[in-house]
């Protein structure tokens, strides 16, 4: 069985980030040098930057703290795993919080120039021709966050130690862009900015085998499926006068299903129907139908992707 080989090493100094071409089958290790440092992370399809990591999809599948065994998914309509978290020695990463920004530090702290993840990401991405508008919602490694009972997200201090790391296995060719989080006046990195070590490995056979297979579905569309596959190159939005709407499955048509309930079934219906539907019997019974369907047929594979082959 093949062993990992080191292909590239880099230390990100505080206030910096690094764009790295990470080919499929390679691993990016993001490692604490001094400990307790948050790392913001962006990721793009190396051959089509319009496909990028989607924190919303990722947190829906894997929860608020993706860790070992989670995928980093791209945005719909591509919606496929770009990276797989092969190892994570801490297990506290975040997909709730946005990147910090210059606006944040000026509005809250009075700095008109301050290290911030938006600008650090943008500067790192500029090496590959991307613009500040291309920085996407951030995957925040080693960042400890919580959701309070009243629904707010909060940041707590972290306890990562020197040598702690997260290994990201590329499943497709990507541009991976980690940066040292610029927040030195918040708890995110315990009020200090520290370097972060990056190492790129060639994955071993065992590494590759560790990543579960995810389904390849018709709905995972690429530009060749788009009605408009041309990337807009100007900034203003102007109406296309030739546009004809083609929304999927429209018009939505409805059909009535007549259901005759026995006396016993009528009593069951009254016993379990949701009061919120008030006198709307049809809506109440429809809710029961699809709740039953969800509980019996809706599942998820071990990879966290929606089950396929459902009825």
């Amino acid at each position, binding site marked *: 069985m093949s062993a990992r080989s080191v292909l590239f090493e880099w230390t990100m100094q505080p206030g910096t980030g690094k764009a790295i071409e990470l080919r499929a089958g390679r691993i990016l290790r993001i490692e604490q040098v001094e400990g307790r440092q948050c790392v913001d992370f962006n990721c793009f399809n190396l051959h089509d930057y319009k496909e990028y990591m989607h924190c919303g999809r990722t947190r829906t599948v894997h929860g608020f703290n993706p860790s070992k065994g989670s995928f980093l998914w791209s945005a719909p309509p591509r919606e496929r795993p770009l990276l797989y978290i092969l190892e994570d020695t801490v297990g506290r990463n975040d997909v709730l919080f946005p990147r910090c920004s210059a606006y944040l530090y000026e509005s809250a702290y009075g700095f008109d120039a301050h290290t911030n993840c938006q600008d650090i990401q943008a500067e790192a991405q500029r090496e590959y021709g991307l613009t500040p508008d291309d920085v996407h919602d951030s995957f925040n490694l080693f960042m400890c966050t919580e959701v309070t009972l009243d629904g707010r997200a909060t940041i707590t201090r972290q306890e990562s130690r020197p040598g702690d790391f997260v290994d990201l296995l590329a499943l497709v060719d990507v541009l991976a862009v980690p940066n040292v989080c610029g927040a030195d006046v918040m708890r995110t990195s315990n009020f200090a900015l520290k370097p972060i070590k990056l190492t790129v490995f060639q994955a071993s056979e065992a590494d590759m085998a560790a990543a579960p297979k995810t389904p390849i579905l018709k709905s995972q569309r690429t530009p060749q499926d788009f009605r408009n596959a041309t990337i807009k190159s100007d900034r203003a939005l102007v109406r296309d006068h030739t546009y004809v709407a083609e929304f999927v499955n429209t018009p939505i048509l409805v059909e*009535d*299903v007549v*259901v005759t309930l026995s006396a016993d079934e009528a009593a*069951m219906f*009254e*016993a379990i129907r949701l009061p919120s539907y008030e006198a709307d019997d049809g*809506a109440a019974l*429809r809710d029961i*139908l699809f*709740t039953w369907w969800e509980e019996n047929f809706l599942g998820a594979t071990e990879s966290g992707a929606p089950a396929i082959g459902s009825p």
Partner: protein
Amino acid sequence: MAERTVIVRLNQQQIELVDRAVARGAAADRAALIRRALREQAAKSSRRGEAR
């Protein structure tokens, strides 16, 4: 309680889901599937009640 008729309005996507379940043998037809769902959900609710 007397027998009762309920009209369940479904759109074509919901019908497709129901029809796939029927085709798999989950029930004889759409109405029967809905009645099965009702009975099984009621039984589940009853079991939860007994557990309490």
